[in-house]
């Protein structure tokens, strides 16, 4: 079993899917010879040929629109958008077509496709390369939104997404692409969608998060553990639909919750989780649910990125505030 990075795990899942299912095709900008700008599709062209690993012209809307046509015809397109900041032009096709193909035909047709993209900030990238549109995707009916936070989960969830009979938006935390390695067996075993992962157990407070913020949250939990505070860390992983049962059960036990996201605050997935906890878990809450989010501003250029992006310090501050709440 090899120690691999998150982006290598994505590559592994793609290669396995292409090898095991002749209907799978991979398409996107520079996914061929170049292997994708982050090398997620490295070697696939050579192994599976240019008919199934398709370098697309520069048009994201086309990439998603063609994927829809392919999926309805029975292929399983896995398309790549180069950066989440270039995915806004695809929302129309996702929402008006991919997400409603099954419903509008009452089950006659379906749209099993995966739309992958690097997501989030923290790599000092140029403008438009650090966006977190997860909440926008999560607002779309009829699709799933997945956001893995480790090589293992990237592998297992991507396999699951590709096998899923409905459209899936698969967000990959750019910042974690190469941050650490993990042993990943190329077992072909998919993880379950629609479920949270409890990464660390604890009875004092529940940290609910996803994407690159899982990493910051685990580090915060480590630091708190040294002070004898036991934090439960939940990686939401499937952002649509959210597995509220797991989150509610945890908070029912800990009584305290902090939700962490790097997306802009207003109408974020953190808002949804906080609102649901307040609605359904009010009686079990010992303190208000705190949200640690990015402010509602334009993602700044790299020199201000560290002021913008939530980090361990802010998580620790929110946790302390929540723990101190009488």
């Amino acid at each position, binding site marked *: 079993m090899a120690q691999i990075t998150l982006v290598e795990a994505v590559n592994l899942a793609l290669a396995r899917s292409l090898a095991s299912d002749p209907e799978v*095709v991979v398409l996107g900008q520079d996914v061929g010879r170049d292997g994708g700008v982050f090398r997620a599709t490295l070697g696939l062209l050579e192994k599976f040929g240019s*008919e*199934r690993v*398709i370098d697309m*012209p520069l*048009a994201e*809307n*086309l990439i*998603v*629109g*063609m*994927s*829809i*046509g*392919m*999926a*309805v*015809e*029975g*292929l399983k*397109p896995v398309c790549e958008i180069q950066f989440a900041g270039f995915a806004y032009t695809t929302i*129309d*096709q996702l929402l*008006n*077509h991919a997400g409603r*193909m*099954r*419903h*509008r*035909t*009452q*089950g*006659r*047709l*379906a749209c099993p496709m995966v739309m992958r993209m690097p997501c989030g900030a923290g790599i000092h990238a140029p403008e438009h390369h650090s966006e977190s549109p997860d909440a926008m995707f999560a607002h779309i*009916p*009829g699709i799933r939104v997945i956001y893995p936070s480790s090589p293992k989960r990237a592998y297992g969830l991507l396999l699951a997404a590709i096998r*899923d*009979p*409905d459209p899936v938006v698969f967000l990959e935390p750019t910042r974690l692409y190469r941050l650490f390695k993990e042993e990943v067996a190329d077992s072909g075993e998919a993880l379950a969608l*629609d479920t949270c992962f409890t990464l660390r157990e604890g009875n004092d407070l529940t940290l609910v998060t996803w994407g690159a913020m899982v990493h910051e949250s685990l580090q915060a939990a480590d630091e708190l553990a040294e002070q004898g505070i036991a934090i439960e860390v939940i990686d939401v992983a499937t952002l649509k*639909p*959210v*597995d*509220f*049962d797991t989150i509610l059960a945890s908070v029912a036990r800990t009584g305290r919750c902090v939700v962490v996201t790097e997306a802009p605050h207003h109408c974020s997935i953190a808002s949804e989780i906080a609102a649901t906890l307040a609605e359904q878990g009010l009686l079990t809450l010992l303190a208000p649910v705190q949200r640690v989010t990015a402010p509602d501003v334009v993602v700044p250029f790299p020199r201000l990125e560290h002021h913008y992006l939530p980090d361990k310090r802010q998580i620790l501050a929110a946790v302390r505030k929540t723990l101190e709440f009488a």
Partner: protein
Amino acid sequence: MTIAAQFQVEYQQFLDPLGRVVRPLPAFAEHPAALIALYEAMVLMRTYDAKAIALQRTGQLGTFASLLGNEAVEAAVGTAMAKEDVLLCTYRENGVQLMRGVTVRELFLYWGGDERGSDFSGPRHDFPTCVTIASQCLHAAGVGYAIKLRRQPRVAVCMFGDGATSKGDFYEGVNAAGIWRLPVVFVLTNNQWAISVPRRGQTAAQTLAQKAIAAGFDGVQIDGNDVIAVHHAVREALARARSGGGPTLIEALTYRLGDHTTADDASRYRPAEEVADAWKKEPVLRLRNYLLEARVWSKEQEEGLLRRCNEHVQAEAQAYLDTPAPPARQMFDYLYATLPGAYAARRAAILGVTSEHGPDHAG
């Protein structure tokens, strides 16, 4: 200064507005039966159309988009396509759908506000009606790619209007079809209007067919009121696509004889004379004139046809009206292949609160 590239756009017509032959007919049109079949299809479309408008006017159908004026294009496409080909069309191509096996009742269900109309009996692989203008051009490229990848002798036929050519989706779709020489036939019905915006308001291009030049393949312009010209062009394009020759863009010149939809009043923005002129070129009368002149069609046949069409549409309308409203759970049933657990509570709440026999407003 040297010349880097040269192009031309051809125009095709066989029957003039009075139904007179202006150039030798293509082989298929030598058989009266073929033309009569086209004629019968066109008359059925008109009967369907009139009934839909009548239903809407009496509050028994929702907003409806009439296909009046489109009959030649739709009959030609419907006849030329093979069953295994894939149709991607708009709200205005119900005629093609009818010819492919979608029932009148299903079309009425659709317009009556019931999704079950798109779970139709026409080829099960045909796309549902596309309302967001030009989106289907991208889907067609994807379908074409899938067909080509699997080496199938099939073609995607993508239909849309003059207005659609202004949208990036149209361009991205044709451009993609050009790159991989996909088996896609783009049928552009230029009926001169996109709601209140006339053709010249969409683009300065002197023809719409020339937009294919930007995608590196051929565009052709035809008289869309001449069913022989349309059938000929579509047939050729389908054959080319089927044999690996790549895509074609066909611009069929017609005229939207009715309002944009039943919610529109075209007299607000277009002169009565223009409409009157257009009626002189309309496709159904043109073909009837030709058939009568050729003595392969008679008054008796015409009456029989009208009666059959009326009876059929009437019966289907009744079947539509007799269809009970869909149950509320339908909202959830086909959202995902399997409804995720997270939806259970909300589904239960809605099914609990709203009676399955609550108010129904078809239309």
